[in-house]
Every structure is written in structure tokens, then in C-alpha cells.
């Protein structure tokens, strides 16, 4: 098998394993990353919600918030998000490369 093929397979394995990134923090009762708290948590920590933060934090409603953690069984949702994200990122790189890579090599 060519190395590139092996690397694609490796990515597939990482997608299947990705729910570990959800389950391990749950298991060890770890919270969100530093500085990535929701407004409720901030209020709890500092006693108020900074006004600008409150306004900006709801600026964008992502279609799949938090990698689908709250949808259709969090493990499957998370894995699906990994797959979807990779498909989109890969497509965009191939698309960009059409414009960026040297013509004589195509």
C-alpha cells in the first residue's frame, strides 16, 4: 500500500476514535477548555456577564454546535462531525489547490 493510502486509512481510524475526545473528558469530569466557557458559566465564575461578550457570543449560530455533542447520541454525532468536517476540509483544499498549484504539473 502506498504511504498516502495508509495515511487516508489512518485518518479513518482517527475518525472512529474521535469520540474519545468526548468520552475521556466526561469520564475524568474535566470541563471546557480555558477561555471557552458559555455565558452561564462566566456568570457563575465572575458574578456577571461582560456586556460585550454577551452581545458577541450569540453573533453566529453554527449549524452543528460543539461537533454534534447534543444530537442523535453524542458519540455518533461526534464521529459524524469528524467525518463531515474532514470531507469539507479536504474538498476545500483540493478546490484551492486547483487555483494554487502549478499548472505544468497538473
Amino acid at each position, binding site marked *: 500500500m502506498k504511504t498516502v493510502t495508509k495515511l487516508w486509512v489512518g485518518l479513518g481510524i482517527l475518525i472512529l476514535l474521535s469520540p474519545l475526545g468526548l468520552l*475521556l473528558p466526561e469520564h475524568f469530569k*474535566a470541563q471546557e*477548555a*480555558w477561555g471557552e466557557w458559555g455565558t452561564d458559566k462566566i456568570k457563575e465564575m465572575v458574578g456577571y456577564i461582560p456586556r*460585550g461578550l454577551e452581545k*458577541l457570543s450569540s453573533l453566529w449560530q453554527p449549524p452543528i454546535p460543539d461537533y454534534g455533542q447534543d444530537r442523535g447520541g453524542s458519540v455518533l454525532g461526534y464521529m459524524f462531525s469528524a467525518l463531515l468536517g474532514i470531507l*469539507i476540509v479536504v474538498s476545500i483544499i483540493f478546490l484551492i*489547490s486547483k487555483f494554487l498549484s502549478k499548472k505544468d504539473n*497538473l
Partner: protein
Amino acid sequence: MHIPDGYLGPATCGFFYLIMLPIWTVASRAVKKTLNARQVPMLAIGAAFSFVIMMFNIPIPGGSTGHAVGGVLVAILLGPWAACIAITVTLVIQALLFGDGGITAIGANCFNMAFVLPFTGYYIYKLISYNCPENSKRRVFAAGIAGYLALNLAALLTGIEFGLQPLLHHAASGQSLYCPYGLNVAVPAMVVEHLLIFGWVEAIVTALVIKYLQKHDPKLLGIKKEVEDENSH
């Protein structure tokens, strides 16, 4: 390390978008000059790897979580400008689709993770592995150190960006308008957890993949050089 919307004030957000614009422009030109069609799948794999590795949240029991970025690996294999493009694409999709990192903070997040991280990592790797053969152990070591230091530098910058907000923006009452924690809290929080835990994850991931490629396809470790040679002819 993905700064969400609302944590940075408009001035900081605008500042980093302004800094990133010329960097993205130069990156596109550099990649256009050096990337050949054979490398496109590698670039796509690199971006995808960075995307998925960031989903592996590592817990500090009872504390916070963090993750590797994978950007140093991409920089070592394809060069720092290509890594900049790959990680930028990843960060934009994470922000737009999954709400990981804010859209107002894309400039700042890209500065930390798609610019400073791959460039520091790349040059530290080059420095330590200078003149050593593709299969030498020193390359694996260099990759690990580069991953560790680069992720920590990115974390330090993120901490500074958070920590400057109370100085830049506060209401008459003294309440912060954006990130409520100053430098004295944000910088140690970001730096210590990365020095102790997450930096090692980036180090191990980077070193292991380099070791694997040394064994199975050492040509890939010379891929960047080969392209540069081709171009100089």
C-alpha cells in the same frame, strides 16, 4: 485554544484580521510557487489530520481540557506556508460549521495556530535536525521539541490576547466588557496547562508520525527539499 466570539474586543479582532490578510496573501503566493500537484493529497491529509486531532480533547482530571493542533507536523512535511493554508481552512470550518472558535476571532486564532505555531515549529525542527540524515534519531527528537515549544508559544499568545481585554475594554463600573480575566490569570492558566500536559501531546504526536514516516517512506521527509530543488532548476 480556540478563542470564542465575545472574548476579544473589536479592536483586537480587527487587529488580527489585518495582520493575517498579508500573511494569507503571501502564503497563497508561496504555496502557488512551491506546491506541485503530487503534494495536493498530502496537503489535504494534513488539513484533515489537524482538524480531527483537535477533536481529541485531553482532560485534566477535574480541570479543563485541551488538545494538540498537529500543525507542526504539517509544517515539517510541507513547509510552514502550506501548513498556514491547511490550518486556516481547518479553523474556518471549525468556526463556521461547529462553533469551535468565534468568527470574529478567526484572525486571532489563525495568527496563533496557523501562523506562529507552524512557523516556530518548522524552524525549531530545521535548527535541531540541521544537516542530519533523513533516518536519524535526531529528527524524531527535533520534531518532538518543535511540537512542544510551538504549541506552548501559541498558548502563551492566546493567554496574552485574553488577558489584554480587561485593560483595553471596561465599563465605568470597572466590569470587563469582554474576557473578564487579566494577564495575571489568563497567561499562567494558558501556559501552565500547555507546558504540563497539552504541549507533550503535540510533541508525541509530531515525533511519532515522523518516526513512522522515517521507517516507511523516508522520501516524504525530504519532500519539501525535493520541490525546492526542482524549482531552482
